[in-house]
């Protein structure tokens, strides 16, 4: 690609200097060069790759994204400068980062039924929840969990290592309980919510053999909701979970086992066919947050003392856990299905619902409750949205139009669109910081990996 040759034809040229925060193999010499002003991102990326190739003979081409004054370039350089009113006379400093787009797609791991929930907060495995049971006898609707453990990342497909069995209806939400200071522990505790009106807590030994999927029973059943539980979230400290339900309430539960906790529990003995007895604890909710008037579709517990909840009554609330009262009540006019809190100092609220617009609010902004960002490239309901846990800018969203989109707050266009799902996408999450896992109504769990988010 001889850009200098092409450049003769272009009348306008811009003096630019490429800078980056990337590590040395990605660094280009910081001399300023003149480039044609009608280049788009792709052209800029080709230039940077050429520069890198000049310094390093065995360089492999890598897509880059470009930032000018903290905004991603999504049109030709000339238009961008014109639109932002940046002078083309001075030497322009263009920061480049690795383009945020999946470079590889793992083979989808097939489930028996719709994949309705996914949690990728543990880098060792992916936790998915699934609709299950309609294929079986009507009197025995049950659902299973798959705890897919990937031995190696690049293995072609994930193996199902554990099946958490016990829910009587579709699983709606899953969450890994991560107690602080126990990262090294192989015993992972997991909370799941289901349409059978219960929340169940499970204990999983990750180190277990992965040849065949091991069946696990819940150690604690939390039946307190009078309708389907839509969402479950664990407290960062790990000793409590909260759940939102169709009965308009948010219940808080203790996660500890019988010997540790002092809360009211009852032991439910259950006889299995072969005679051995199993004990399962039943817990009651510690407290209930009442205020929503319709189904609580999503709960998030980002800090130990605050819970965010979204509801079909068109409101997003922030609850003070100690007080049990809502300290913020945002009305947004649409049914909200998914909610996540993250971004800048993990205080931005991203939510999507019954329209194709992903909205982001800043509750710290005084005065107005208007969303500060609106992303509207989807064409149907948004079913999931998640902030990247390291980056302030990156979001993933899933929609019923079968697309998973990656977003950057610095541009209104999606960074990447994953269109591998054949049907509605019901859930999506980040995994290991550089992959997106998504599950949908085509019963597939997709892992799109090698996404370079700084």
């Amino acid at each position: 690609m001889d850009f200098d040759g092409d450049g003769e034809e272009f009348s306008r040229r811009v003096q630019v200097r490429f800078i980056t925060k990337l590590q040395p193999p990605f660094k280009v010499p910081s001399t300023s060069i003149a480039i044609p002003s009608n280049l788009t991102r792709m052209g800029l990326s080709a230039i940077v790759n050429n520069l890198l190739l000049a310094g390093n003979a065995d360089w492999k081409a890598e897509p880059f994204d470009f930032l000018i004054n903290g905004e991603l370039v999504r049109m030709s350089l000339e238009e961008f400068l014109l639109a932002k009113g940046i002078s083309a006379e001075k030497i322009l400093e263009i920061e480049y980062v690795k383009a945020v787009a999946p470079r590889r797609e793992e083979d989808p791991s097939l489930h028996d039924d719709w994949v309705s929930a996914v949690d990728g907060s543990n880098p060792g495995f992916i936790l998915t929840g699934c609709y299950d049971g309609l294929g079986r006898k009507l009197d025995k609707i049950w659902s299973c969990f798959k705890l897919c453990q990937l031995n190696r990342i690049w293995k072609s497909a994930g193996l199902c290592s554990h099946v958490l069995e016990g829910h009587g209806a579709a699983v709606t939400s899953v969450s890994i309980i991560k107690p602080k200071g126990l990262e090294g522990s192989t015993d992972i505790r997991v909370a799941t919510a289901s349409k059978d009106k219960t929340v169940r807590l499970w204990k999983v030994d990750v180190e277990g053999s992965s040849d065949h999927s091991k069946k696990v029973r819940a150690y604690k059943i939390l039946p307190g909701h009078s309708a389907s539980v839509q969402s479950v979230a664990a407290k960062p400290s790990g000793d409590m979970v909260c759940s939102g339900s169709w009965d308009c309430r948010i219940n808080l539960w203790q996660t500890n086992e019988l010997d540790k906790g002092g809360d009211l529990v009852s032991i439910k003995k259950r006889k299995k066919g072969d005679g051995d007895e199993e004990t399962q604890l039943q817990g009651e909710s510690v407290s209930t947050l009442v205020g929503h008037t319709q189904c609580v579709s999503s709960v998030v517990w980002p800090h130990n003392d605050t819970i965010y909840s979204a509801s079909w009554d068109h409101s997003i609330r922030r609850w003070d856990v100690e007080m049990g009262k809502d300290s913020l009540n945002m009305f947004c006019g649409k049914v909200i299905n998914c909610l996540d809190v993250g971004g800048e100092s993990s205080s931005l609220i991203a939510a999507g619902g019954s329209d194709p617009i992903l909205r982001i609010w800043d509750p710290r902004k005084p005065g107005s409750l208007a969303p500060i960002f609106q992303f509207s490239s989807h064409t149907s309901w948004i079913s999931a949205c998640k902030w990247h846990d390291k980056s302030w800018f990156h979001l993933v969203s899933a929609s019923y139009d079968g697309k998973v989109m990656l977003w950057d707050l610095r541009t209104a266009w999606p960074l990447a669109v994953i269109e591998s799902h054949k049907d509605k996408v019901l859930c999506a999450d980040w995994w290991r910081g550089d992959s997106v896992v998504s599950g949908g109504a085509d019963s597939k769990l997709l892992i799109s990996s090698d996404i370079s988010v700084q």
Partner: protein
Amino acid sequence: MVELKLSETGSGAEESEFSENEQEIANTSGGDDVSTGGVEHAPQDHGVTDNGDFQQEEDQNESDEDRHGVEESDSSEDEVAPLNTVGEVPLVWYKDEEHIGYDITGKKIKKKERQDKLDSFLASADDSKNWRKIYDEYNDEEVELTPHETKLIRKLLKGQAPHANFDPYAPYVDWFAWEDSKHPLSSAPEPKRRFIPSKWETKKVVQYVRAIRKGLIKFDKPKEEPRVYHLWGDDSSSKEKAAHGLAYIPAPKPKLPGHDESYNPSLEYIPTQEEINSYQLMFEEDRPKFIPKRFTSLRSVPAYEKAVSESFERCLDLYLCPRARKKRINIDPESLKPKLPSRKNLKPYPTTCYLEYRGHKGAVLSISTEASGEWIASGSSDGTVRVWEVETGRCLRIWELGEAVQHVAWNPSPDLPILAVSAGQDVFILNTGFGNEEDQKRVKVLLHVETHPEPDDSSQCNKASVVGWAQDARHEGVRLKHFKTVSSVEWHRKGDYFSTVMPTDILLAIKAILIHQLSKKVTQRIPFKLHGLPVSSTFHPTRSVFFVSTKKNVRVYDLLKQKLVKKLETGFREVSSIAIHPGGDNVIVGSRDGKMAWFDMDLSSQPYRVLKCHPKDITSVAFHRSYPLFASCSDDCTAYVFHGMVYSDLNQNPLIVPLEILRGHTSANGRGVMDCKFHPRQPWLFTAGADSVIRLFCH
């Protein structure tokens, strides 16, 4: 003497002028010895100098005349001092004297010697300039007129301006720069009289005022308005005609001919052959009346071909001309439209379809939403009843009933998750399996208890019963066997009673509508006589009132008092569906001729509004439970959403605003949208299509 001193000292510019005068005077006066030391006087006497100057000049002139005669004679007489010093006395007195006066030194001024007449005559005859010479008797001298003076005299004689250099026709230079007017009539400033009130006018006004006061001037009396008028009179024509004969109607002005009507228009006006051919395809009214043609000369223009036909038509017009003059009402049709609020202010309402519920194999005939809005149930012509999850579009349960499912209805009570389904001649009460364990227990009890012991007993002991209650083992429910096809099932708000409608012929009409009680498993007929074929029935949302719609009318019965409360006359040929406003006082009725009627029960038994919007049959109408919305769906594959606001103020009529046309369904076997239901809590509309799809329209 002071003056002389002055001039001698030579102060300023005057010095040069007066220096010679001084010498002359010195000469004439014979040289007065004047001291030159008068310098110190000069400033004080300066004020007098002007007068002195003039006198000096006169003196100088005198002395000049002595020498040069009358050179400067154009000045006034005072300046040219006469030689004669006798004064203004008749010269006759000096007739015989030698002298005439004395000069300043006291010597006699001698008269000139008299030439005798002959000499003077001869001299004048010799002298060519004699004609210029005039004898001045007073000064006793002969004056010769200079050519300048003669010219002056000549000009005077002609009546022209005497001065030679005066140009009477000099170009006019205005003293004021006029901006606007190039040709000012007068450049004079505006006279003052224009700014002050006219005295003459005031006098005249005063005169009139006095005359009016005295009664000399009389006015016309004001016309008396007729206190009554002919209410039904044709004010347009009859009176005027009687008064003035036929009123004059000006002929309409014909349009002036343009270039295209010329006998030789330029080429761009001539239509091409293609265009002329295309005129043939137009309607006769739309065709252009005149097609431009070219002729080389005026002579070759043929006679007007339509002359005969047009004059015939004109005759027809005259013959058929109406003799009455009709006034055209000039009203903007826009202003006649009722003022409706903007759609934007009436949000939220369903607009876009985001979710589809696919799975049925046949037309979806009926849908019903669960009270919380988490699930919907649908019945289809493929014989299945399905329950769907609203949020994801997932089909949760399927019941195979074998016969086309006409109607499904969720129990309105939130803790009784059961469905009433009509399929063929049977009505099934199905347990959906939702709800918590207690609910399930209650439902089991409700659907279980009496079924197997006495299906026959119940029918025997209750003679009115025309329905067999039976346990349905296959579907874990209750089966009510009717004797005719059941078209609709409706629950009472408390979830214990439900009504079924069998559209049968008139003879059996008394049994056509049955009310069942689930808890006691009892069936009873409604104790009213129906007039016409029943179509559907509904319970009042709050009171114990029962609505039955027959093909033409809607009858409202009070179940407690067991009597007819009201009869709503729709005026339609065939009513298809009915929905009650959650307030209970307003009813909408959809008909098979595409019209929908809104009844305000407090107003009258006639419809408050009839909305005609669908070109085909309306299949279903629905009210929203909490939002002021209602909808209708039709076989034309559309659903209409309306804003229907009912005010608690009895004086205010309901406000009905059409909001949105929802499209998306496709036609199948000539049927379009079969049913529509609102989500119980969201402003969303479910529509069930004959294309076996259920759609959810969201706001």
